[in-house]
């Protein structure tokens, strides 16, 4: 079966449409969505309606959670004071335009979704706000995949796609019991994988193109897709809706609007 996994649409309806067309052309059998339907972009309601109308299984993203629960971004999210101010502005704007039934829908979204040996989360299995950065310590990364009880963990939230193989991890544990000699035990953990699918609506890879991932469940092959779309339309809508104009400038360059994680050792406590 061919899966398409998308994440972080952030109210960018143009980008979502382009990605859905590409998924169609690639003949995927099923779409999964890792959340962040809203926030930053000009069309949060329309994006949610589209996802709902297509019945796409979706996890709750950090922005979706914040629109339901109130802003709860971790301090690791903002690289600067300026970014934090902008992030708050975007949250307030989204909060003010979101329809009540959209908010209700976002509240119903689950933290994780499973399909056989695959697990789908927004940030990490423990939090929508935690960043699984590609440079994260290997043992910690493996712990996240094992805690999800999966072979492949799909995540988003960093907005930069990557595939990380956690190969042939050998875990060694020393067991010391009273009146017995120390006995080392070895566990062999088979290949596990973290697949970050990037972002449809607010890419941070230095180009404006949307990214998502195709996954073949039979061959375990991961294909990263980069989809150009008419981002100028979204830029115009950002200006028309009264969102900070700098978001349009940054979208056109594939730069984060406000949040960006850069500390791989940081563990989110929320």
């Amino acid at each position, binding site marked *: 079966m061919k899966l398409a996994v998308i994440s972080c649409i952030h109210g960018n309806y143009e980008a979502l449409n382009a990605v859905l067309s590409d998924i169609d052309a690639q003949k995927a059998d099923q779409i999964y969505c890792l959340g962040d339907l809203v926030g930053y972009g000009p069309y949060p309601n329309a994006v949610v309606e589209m996802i709902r109308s297509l019945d796409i299984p979706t996890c709750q993203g950090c922005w979706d959670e914040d629109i339901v629960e109130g802003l709860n971004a971790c301090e690791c999210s903002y*690289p*600067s*004071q*300026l*970014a934090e*101010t902008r992030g708050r502005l975007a949250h307030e704007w989204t909060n003010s335009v979101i329809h009540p039934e959209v908010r209700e829908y976002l509240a119903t979204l689950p933290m994780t979704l499973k399909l056989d040996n695959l697990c789908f989360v927004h940030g990490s299995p423990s939090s929508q706000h935690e960043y699984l950065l590609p440079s994260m310590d290997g043992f910690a990364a493996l712990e996240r995949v094992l805690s999800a009880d999966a072979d492949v963990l799909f995540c988003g939230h960093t907005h930069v796609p990557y595939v990380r193989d956690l190969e042939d991890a050998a875990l060694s544990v020393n067991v010391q019991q009273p009146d017995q000699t120390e006995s080392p035990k070895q566990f062999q953990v088979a290949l596990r994988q973290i697949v970050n699918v990037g972002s449809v609506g607010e890419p941070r890879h230095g180009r404006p193109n949307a990214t998502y991932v195709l996954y073949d469940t039979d061959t375990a092959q991961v294909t990263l897709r980069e989809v150009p779309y008419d981002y100028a339309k979204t830029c115009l809508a950002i200006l028309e809706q009264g969102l900070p*104009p*700098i978001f349009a*400038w940054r979208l056109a*360059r594939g730069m984060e609007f406000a949040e960006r994680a850069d500390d791989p050792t940081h563990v989110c406590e929320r």
Partner: protein
Amino acid sequence: MASSNITLVAGSPGAGKTTWISQFLTDQSQDLFYLCPGMGRDSVDLVRIGYRFPWVSVIPENQAQTVLAGLPRQAQVYLELGFHLDLASPLLATLPCQRVAVLPPSLNQSEWHDWADEVIPGNDIQDAGRDPLPELWRSPLTGQVFDPPSLDELLIELTGGAYGKVMRLKGIFEMPDGRAFHIDFVQGLPGIEYTELNLPRWLQGRPNRFSGLEVVGHHLEQETISKTLLASCLADDVLAQYQHQYQRLHPDEETKEVFSI
């Protein structure tokens, strides 16, 4: 007066006028004077020259006439002319002086060529010409201290054209650890240059010394730049926290700095 040497230096923004002049300001055995007419008292260049070469007499605009009339014998005077200054101004015409133009090597013909006694090849940048004349926007910031990553972000946006086309940007910015930096950007040259200024760390409240930003360009969104600058500055309580933290981590330096301020 007749025995003093006056050098007028003109040229396109970013060609390297101040850099060219700076090489002559290291000689402490001479009476050195530096002027930058048209820039008022608080220009980034004026202040920076004062910090780098404390032995140079940096003359603010309103004292220029008096100082030029009573120069000591053997004085060396460097007069840097902003790109927006009229080369045919009567003040410049009456001065007995050497005229130097610092220009991009690719520029072969210009009013600077006609005006200068000597042309010095400067930075290899595109000369944008003076038609239309670019805007010069200045924002004094004395007392403002920046959140360093916010300042980085703002400078990337400014020099990347988010708030209008920027040809030249220079500034002096205060940091929460008490240091001050000179920042320099020339369109066409790679990167943004950060140079720490040789000043005592300011760790007692808001720094009472000049800082500020100067931007040369076209269609500059001045109001948005101002707002973004202020959004990048630290509030009183945050600044106090930083300064307290720094003093706690470097108790020796603290005593030294308190004496030197």
